[in-house]
Structure formats: C-alpha cells, structure tokens
C-alpha cells in the first residue's frame, strides 16, 4: 500500500461546525417515500449504544484510497507513458499482453467505435468514462497477484501508459494529481444515469 496519500482539499474530509442532521430528517429531505412502510419507524428512530471510536483523518489515511472524478484523493507523484511501459512489461503482460490489446483477462486497449456494434469491445480506452478511475483501480487492485504493491509514481506511469496506448494522451505527457482529472475520456458522455429512477424500468 502506498504511504498515506496526501489529500487535496477533498470535500468529504471537511469538518463541519453546524450540527449534522438526524437520519430521519435527512430521509425526508431526500424524499425517501414512506420510509416507515418498508422499514419500521421504530428501528429508524432507534439509537445505538454509542460504541464507535472517533478517529482523526490522519488515523484513517492509510485506508482513505478513494479517488473521485474531480481528482480529490490523488496523492503526490507523477509518471509518463515511457516509464509506464517499463512497469507494464514487468507487472502486467502475463494477463494483458505486451500492448494491452489482448490477453487472458480484460482487454485494456482498443475497441474504439465498437460499442454500438454486435461485438462491442469495452476497454479502458473505448468505454471507461473517467481517467481517475484507472489510477484508483490500479492502485487498489493491481497487479492481481500483488495488489497495493506499486508506488504512486508507478501507478501514475501505468495510468499514463494505458491512456497513451489508447491514443488519448501523448507519450511525453506527465500524469499527476493536477493533469489526470483533466484528461477527457472518449466515452465520457456514453452513460445514461438512471438514478434516481424516474420511470419504471
């Protein structure tokens, strides 16, 4: 695991001074229909014994690994596609082949223009809507046999390499906490968000 990632001004880390809403009031604010019908009201009103131990953000840091599309959560460090190619050759080719276009497991490269065809190929380049998700997923779950073993620089470099193989950034473009959230993924507008539901599916 990377050492405690440095936090940018992440909204979720902000400490609020105003009192937090009770969940019942919040449920009303969120428009949950008749919460008491599906869930006995007495249970919602029930209070716990207060056994949670309060933590500081610093204490949570090693677990606080989510990266949001706006880049919050991205740690210091950087890498480019050339560096990423070297890491990829050591860590990734067993499952994803030398250029990520084939392999035993998920294809990472190619598939552009296939999504509306009879044989869609969903890759990082053709399908993934956010570049930040690439960094997040590599850092938390890859390489498969040794997850959370890469440095943040290596993770940035691999992210840059995959973006470059997909023709999204140049070989010399450096990915870091500032540049990665600005990368425009080709399929960014390819999703229809159906939450909250507006009609019966």
């Amino acid at each position, binding site marked *: 695991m990377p050492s405690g990632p440095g936090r940018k001004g992440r*909204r*979720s*880390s*902000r400490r*609020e001074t*105003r*009192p*937090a*809403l*009770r*969940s019942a009031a*919040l*449920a009303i604010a*969120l*428009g*949950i229909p008749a*919460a008491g019908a*599906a*869930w006995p009201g007495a*249970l919602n009103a*029930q*209070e*716990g014994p*207060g*056994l*949670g*131990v*309060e*933590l*500081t953000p610093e204490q*949570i840091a090693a*677990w606080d*690994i*989510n990266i*949001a*599309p706006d880049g919050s959560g991205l740690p210091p460090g950087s890498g480019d596609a050339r560096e990423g190619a070297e890491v990829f050759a050591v860590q990734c080719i067993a499952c994803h082949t030398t250029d990520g276009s084939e392999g*035993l*497991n998920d294809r990472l490269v190619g598939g552009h223009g296939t*999504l*509306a065809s009879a044989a869609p190929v*969903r890759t990082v380049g053709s*399908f*993934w*809507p*956010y570049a930040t*998700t690439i960094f997040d*997923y590599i850092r938390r*779950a890859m390489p*498969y046999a040794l*997850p*959370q073993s890469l440095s943040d620089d290596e993770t940035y470099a691999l992210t840059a390499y995959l973006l470059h193989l997909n023709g999204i950034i140049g070989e010399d473009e450096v990915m870091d906490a500032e540049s990665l959230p600005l990368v425009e993924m080709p399929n960014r507008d*390819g*999703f*229809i968000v*159906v*939450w*909250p*539901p507006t009609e*019966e*599916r």
Partner: protein
Amino acid sequence: MTGSRCSGRGFEQVAGNGLLHRRLFLTKTASLAGAAGLGFMTARPAAAQAQLDVPEWTKVPGAPMSGYGSPSPHEAHVQRAFFSRPGTVGSGASQTPLEQLEGIITPSGLHFERHHNGIPAIDPGRHRLVIHGLVARPLMFDLESLARYPLISRIQFLECSGNGRANDAPEPPQVPVSQIHGLVSCSDWTGVPLSVLLDEAGVEPEARWIVAEGADSAAMNRSVPMAKALDDAMIALYQNGERLRPDNGYPMRLFLPGYEGNMSIKWLRRIEVTAEPMMTREETSKYTDLLPDGRALQFTFQMGVKSVITSPSGGLEMQGPGLYQISGIAWTGAGRIRRVEVSADGGQTWAEAALTDPLLPISLTRFRMPWRWDGGPAVLQSRAIDETGAVQPTRAALHARLGTRFDYHHNAIQSWLVAADGAVSNIYA
C-alpha cells in the same frame, strides 16, 4: 394411473397441455404429493414381489453426536459449480444448485459466490469498520461493539446482476438451471441497521452517497445512494443464524435488499460518506448496461421481477407420462411477489401457480403447479408479477428493449422444452 383418479375433483385442467388447478395441492388427494421430487405419482408402482427386510442400520448403534453437522454423504453431489478467470483461482463465481434445492432458504454452504480476488483470511478480532467523509464524527467499530447494537433479521434474496445472462447467447446453453440462474440465493440475514451507525457518525446535510469498500485484496468498492443507506441497508453479521461464512463476507458485509449483489460489499471495512458517486471501476466499466446504440445505463441498482422453474429443468429426465409437480422460485427487488403464472404450451395459455408461505418482501417465493404430462412435447414457462404490477418479460421483449449486450439485469422468462422421450432442455421460446 387410472382415468377415474384423474377425473376427480381437484384435477381440473386450467390451461393448455395439462396444467391443473393449483387447488390440487389443497385437497385430500394432495397428501399423495408429499412424495418429493420430479416424478411423484407418475405411474402406479408395480406390485411388490418380496417381503420387506429390516436393513442393517436399524440393527446396529448409530453414529455419535458431532460438534457441527454435515449433509449426508449420499448428498455429496449437491455442489456449487464454479469457475475463475484465467490465471486466477479466486476471481470468478460459484452458482447455487437450484435444481437440487427446495423451499426458499439457501444453505449457507451453497450460497452463490462472486469474488474479485479470493476470500480474505480475516482475523475478526483485528477487523474494523470505519465510517468517515461527510460526517461530524469519523467513527471506527469492531465486531464485538457492532454485535451490541440493536440487531434486526430479514429473510431476503441476494442476486448477482449478471444472473441469467447465459441466455443472451445466440443458442440456448444446454446446462443445468443453476448454471444459467444460480447467481441468486436467499438467507436469513441478521445485522445492524446502517442508519443507526450513520446517525451516530452524524451525516452532513450535503451527503447524498456512501462509498462502501471491502477488506479483500481487490478492495472492492461501490457507491450507494444515501437514500438506500438510510432506508433498509444492513451491516450483516449473521447468515442463517450463524456468523457469516467467509465466502459471504465474514465477519461483516453490507446488505442492500433488492439491489444488485455487487453493491452488498463483503468483508466491509470502510464507508466514506460523499456528495457524489465515486465512479469506481465496478460502477462504470462493469455493472452498466450497454444498449444497442452504444450508450450504457448507469446505476440500474434494483433487481427486476423474475422467476424460474427449477423442476423440471434442463438436463433432468421425466419418468414417463403422469402427474408431476412443477416447482420453482420467484423474486423481485421491488417487494413481494403477487402472482406466478405457469404455461405448458410455450406461453399460449397460462394458469396461476400456488405460492408457498411465507410470502416475504425481497425474498425468494416458492411456487408449485400440478401438471399432467401426456407424454407429448411441452414447453414449460413461468411468469412472475410483483406487488408493483411489474410483469416478468419474455426474452424477445427484453431484447427488443435492451438489445443483447446489456449483460446485467437479465430477468427474462425461462423456457424448458420437455421432449417426448422425457429429456428436458433449454429452449428460446
């Protein structure tokens, strides 16, 4: 079987190709139906040729007690089928053997599995759950503390949203029902309402989502609407009365009733409260439903209304013409099952099946239907209707709406062809 037995009260034909009124199971003749299995009352048994003997197990002392019981060795064939991604052993799924089970509760050892990097070997004494983000007080809980919170119990199904997609293949796969629809299971879950813990942490007004994360080496994570988290989400600690099995998230998992199984994060270690979804790998590149125009539906959380006949089903053999009990399961993420209809003529005519108590919300519901098979070809189907009025669609209707590459939330009607030789196979009808 004699004609007179079949023409009696309770043998009223209610739909084409031999479907009989469900009241048959409520009459005295139905006591004959106590014999379980595919072929009860199929033919009058031949007269016994010999005197009964007393078998050896009646004449020797039996086995002693044991600390934890196991199924009979004669049931050793009742197994989950499983597969893993190439080059891995713990990145795949196992499927509940629906064709071997009855009732609605899935034995814990037969609950389906879907793991992304194996089952972590968690020491429960060192496991922690952290709630942080947009909260007044970031909190950490251990297992012992959580077990002191007010517990609730509910019998509810869990379904992988990829369940059933084998039937999107151009040709119907000739495999047991479990290998098409076995990514659904049902358990008695006991745990702590998540709303109680969020209350204690103090959710900030702008919070709209939580991001739940597992302690497995995939650190699997999903964004969940705050509305769901406060409504009926549970931190489950017990499954069918005992602590969770390791393959179902020991020592604690998120349980989101009626939502696609991927969101009910196993081995739950962290909940970050946020204003926006995190757009994790699982909720963008996976678990989004690709439409024919190349766009994909995102955040299709709730599982649709669905049913499937488990007996008879693909790969089983009929035991000659006669009276059979059709048996299957129905479920919906929307609440209760209102009605299940069965057809024996490929959907030309339908009749209502008997639903077996208890009829619980977001649970499996067992349905049964008497059927007199005349020995000719038949196509068996079931169609569930839930309490919102939603009707399970045909495969053709589902494909007309979503295409064939949506991959998730496949709830189409399953058709089984019963051939004249008694073989049962998968058919697109």
